[in-house]
């Protein structure tokens, strides 16, 4: 960089020729009579600045930075804690969900079993009742049939006796009954 090179060469010239240049050009920096006043003001100003920095500025800035770091750390900790809690709650919830699901399926199974049992019991009951009714009806029909059949024999004998009585004049009921029986037997396949 030419600017830098120029600068360095001027600096080198100034440094090498410093004592001579100071004498020749009368560099004000080497005027020893001006040293005490500069040192006096330097000490005063530096002391004032030091006092202000050490007592007022630095403790305050330091406290601010520290409290900010604490706050950030506390916030991070709180966030971590909340995250942990949320995760634990999630696990808890999953567990509860699984449990509830198991419970629900158990309930459904129980209910369907109960319903099936009830249905089959009712079915049995109904079929039993129907069976009994059918049996009773069959029995009644049978009875009526035998009754009718029995009645049929005596009715035929009566009719035959009456018919014979009209045709022949008289008839032996016992003979007629025997004849009817034989006819009935023969009529049967």
């Amino acid at each position, binding site marked *: 960089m030419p600017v*830098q090179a*120029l600068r360095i060469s001027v*600096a080198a010239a100034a440094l090498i020729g410093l004592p001579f240049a100071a004498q020749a050009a009368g*560099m004000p920096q080497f*005027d020893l009579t001006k040293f*005490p006043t500069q040192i006096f003001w330097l000490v005063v*100003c530096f002391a004032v600045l030091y006092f202000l920095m050490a007592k007022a500025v630095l403790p305050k800035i330091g406290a601010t930075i520290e409290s900010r770091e604490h706050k950030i750390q506390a916030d991070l900790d709180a966030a971590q804690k909340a995250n942990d809690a949320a995760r634990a709650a999630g696990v808890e919830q999953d567990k509860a969900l699984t449990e509830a699901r198991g419970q629900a399926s158990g309930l459904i199974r129980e209910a369907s079993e109960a319903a099936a049992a009830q249905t089959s019991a009712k079915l049995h009951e109904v079929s039993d009742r129907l069976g009994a009714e059918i049996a009773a009806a069959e029995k009644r029909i049978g009875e009526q049939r035998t009754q009718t059949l029995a009645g049929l024999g005596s009715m035929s004998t009566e009719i035959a006796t009456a018919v014979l009585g009209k045709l022949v004049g008289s008839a032996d009921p016992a003979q007629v009954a025997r004849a009817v029986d034989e006819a009935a037997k023969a009529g049967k396949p």
Partner: protein
Amino acid sequence: MASPLEQFAIQDLTAPLFTIGGHHIAVTNSAIFMMSAVVLSSGLLLAGAGKGAMIPGRIQAMSELFYEFIANMIRDNVGSGGKKFFPFIFTLFIFTLFGNILGMLPYGYTFTSQIAVTFFMAMVVFLGVTLIGLFKHGLHFFSLFFPHGAPLFTAPILIPIEVVSYLSRPISLSVRLFANMTVGHVLLKVLAGFVVALGFFGFVPLIVLVAITALELLVALLQAYIFTILCCIYLNDALHLH
């Protein structure tokens, strides 16, 4: 044309206020700028420290930047035991920084371009650091002048070299700051003279002048940093002996 060195002259602005050891003390142009540096820097930093808000504003952010910059510098270069010297190092940096920057203002005066100022600061640091080392380590402090692990027969050569380099610390420290500031301002003044002398073609040195002003601003910041970090390194030597 006025000499480019005239700008460094110390001028009494008031009648002598009082006398110390036969020397008349008056308010000088240099003193005005030292006071300005104190007032401006402490005003800025007090405003920055003022509310101590959790979310800093601009001035507070800048003050905290300065604080952490120097705190980190001490942590990295001095380490343990450096915390005690934090206010001093901080003040040194701020005072030098504002001295350098205020000199860049038009009609400004650069009190850090005065060898009296830089050498006095360097001597205070040098003597302070030496005394701290002697108090902390006693006579063992002088082991600083012989590198640990060097062959014993090299002592006649090494010890004088180390002693001379140690004693030249305040000179190199003060001359570095003083020379940088002086040369920068001389250069600016000479180039400004060219701008006037060349008439119409003065715009050429003017462009260079603008560039060098930017460079000088960088040098102002850099030299304040170098002055401070060297003090930290010397302090580290005294506290921890290599």
